[in-house]
């Protein structure tokens, strides 16, 4: 079996599991794990947003929660204050996040490394405090709740809404799946290769004619879009928006998820996010210092498996494959 086949099988397994989860999970564990799984899928998009920047373009952002928060507020304000329906609110949240990323990106991607990381934190802090203090619009400390508009109505009787838990689950799973599909398409395009090229060596990239600034800005906006979709979904999921999800603590968590899952691999963030959320669910009420364990895991991963669990998986598959038929597959087509 070629590495590509193994990876495809892995993806199919993940899709099958996701589709079957609402029936299968309750057979083994408490049914609230279905909810937690949809939450994991949403958060994995935030990690994917970090991963796109760090793993593919080489920019470490500690501010992706800003765009997540923008998505949340876009949806909540759209529905509660502007009276928007479901789809316009979804669009508004995602748009707001993407536009914010375009504005912040214009400044941030001029910088690299720690300066870039710092400016992303600064941006998210500014808007965190703005959201906290702008009470009439954002609800301040209390957050902004809203009641769920229907996704779709037809006449009097047909009404589709996320208040139905099954619909909510599949809506989230489908949207998250679409985001990863989009990401996969972009990553194997000329733009995706330009991302990797800029990450490898930005000076050389500019010498072969790549506009490094524009490539980075594009990636930053794409990452903002993904985080915005995640935030919008999370607003629907919780039926409210809150500034606390914009805090850099949340951004930092997404960085940890991405690193443990494996930067530079498409689905690493799903693995990292799921694993750490399971850890949190299982350990946080038994052991209040469970973050010590998380910290240790991060240190171990960074030292011994810098490409995270996703990287370990790729290494394993490639090694097994090269033992079988001597071919090594390192093209980006298979880096999933």
């Amino acid at each position, binding site marked *: 079996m070629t590495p590509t086949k193994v990876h495809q099988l892995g993806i199919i397994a993940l899709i099958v599991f996701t589709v079957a989860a609402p029936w299968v999970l309750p057979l083994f564990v408490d049914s609230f794990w279905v909810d937690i799984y949809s939450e994991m899928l949403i958060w994995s998009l935030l990690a994917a947003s970090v991963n796109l920047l760090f793993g593919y373009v080489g920019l470490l952002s500690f501010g992706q929660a800003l765009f997540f928060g923008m998505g949340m507020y876009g949806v909540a304000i759209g529905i509660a204050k502007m009276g928007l329906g479901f789809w316009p609110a979804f669009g508004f949240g995602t748009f707001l996040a993407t536009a914010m990323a375009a504005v912040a990106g214009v400044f941030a991607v001029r910088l690299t490394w720690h300066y870039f990381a710092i400016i992303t934190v600064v941006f998210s802090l500014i808007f965190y405090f703005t959201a906290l203090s702008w009470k009439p619009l954002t609800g301040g400390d209390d957050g902004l709740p809203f009641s769920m508009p229907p996704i779709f109505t037809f006449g009097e009787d047909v009404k589709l809404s996320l208040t139905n838990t099954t619909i909510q689950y599949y809506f989230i799973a489908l949207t998250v799946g679409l985001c990863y599909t989009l990401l996969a398409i972009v990553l194997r395009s000329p733009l995706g290769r330009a991302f990797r*090229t800029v990450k490898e060596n930005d000076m050389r990239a500019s010498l072969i*004619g790549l506009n490094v600034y524009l490539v980075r800005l594009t990636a930053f906006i794409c990452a903002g879009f993904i985080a915005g979709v995640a935030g919008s979904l999370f607003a629907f999921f919780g039926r409210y928006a809150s500034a606390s999800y914009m805090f850099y603590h949340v951004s930092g968590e997404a960085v940890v998820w991405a690193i443990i899952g494996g930067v530079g691999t498409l689905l690493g963030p799903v693995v990292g996010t799921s694993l750490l959320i399971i850890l949190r669910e299982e350990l946080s009420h038994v052991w209040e210092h469970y973050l010590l364990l998380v910290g240790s895991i991060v240190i171990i991963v960074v030292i011994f498996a810098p490409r995270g669990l996703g990287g370990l998986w790729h290494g394993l598959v490639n090694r097994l494959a090269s033992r079988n038929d001597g071919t090594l597959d390192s093209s980006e087509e298979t880096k999933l």
Partner: protein
Amino acid sequence: MTDIPVLEITNVEKHFGGLVALDSVNAAVESGKLTAIIGPNGAGKTTLFNVITGILPASAGQLKFQGQDITRKSAHEISRLGLARTLQIKSVFNGMTVRENLWIAAQSRDGVFKPFQRASKSKRANETADRICEELGLSALANQEASNLSYGDIALLEIGLALATEPKLLLLDEPICGMGPAETEQTVAKIQELAKRIDIVIIEHDIEVVFDISEDIIVMNLGQILARGTPKEIASNVAVRAAYLGDDDA
């Protein structure tokens, strides 16, 4: 077209704090001749390339490429105009295969902002990458990650990256430094062959090679152009012998 110089350097200066790395440099590079730049370490040769290619801004002066002012253009714009270079400190895209390295350089001509197209379907870039692999004898290594290459092969890939952008003028910064004798011979032959269709300026420390392949030699010292002429003229230039060739009886 042939009467305007391919590259025109007018009163170009570059200061690093108090250090004057380029001191009012004036030179015109003619099309159709292989031009060499020589000079002792720290003479400002690489700095001149950096200023020409937009890696560093000039402190003063003007640069023209094919008659067009490029003084304030950025590196990627200058590359797009058809001016390519290699780096003295060899640096390629290490985590990518040899073919991917060449592919992205070729694709940059057609634009990379194509998020919904499949990279592997870019016909022209694929062909260019394969052609240059072959031309430089790197075909057997095409699927190797660049980080696995030997020093000499990295130097070749450096040249390949520049060639993949299909330049009109190619600046080579010590391209054979670190190569073995056989590789050197091949690469020098390759450079001579390229010089028939591309204008080339080469910085090189190996005087024998320089005198062998170039028709026009610029000698730099302390940020200035000390002398300029044919290999014959340079060989007999007293100032050059004193400053550079270390000839004590001059």
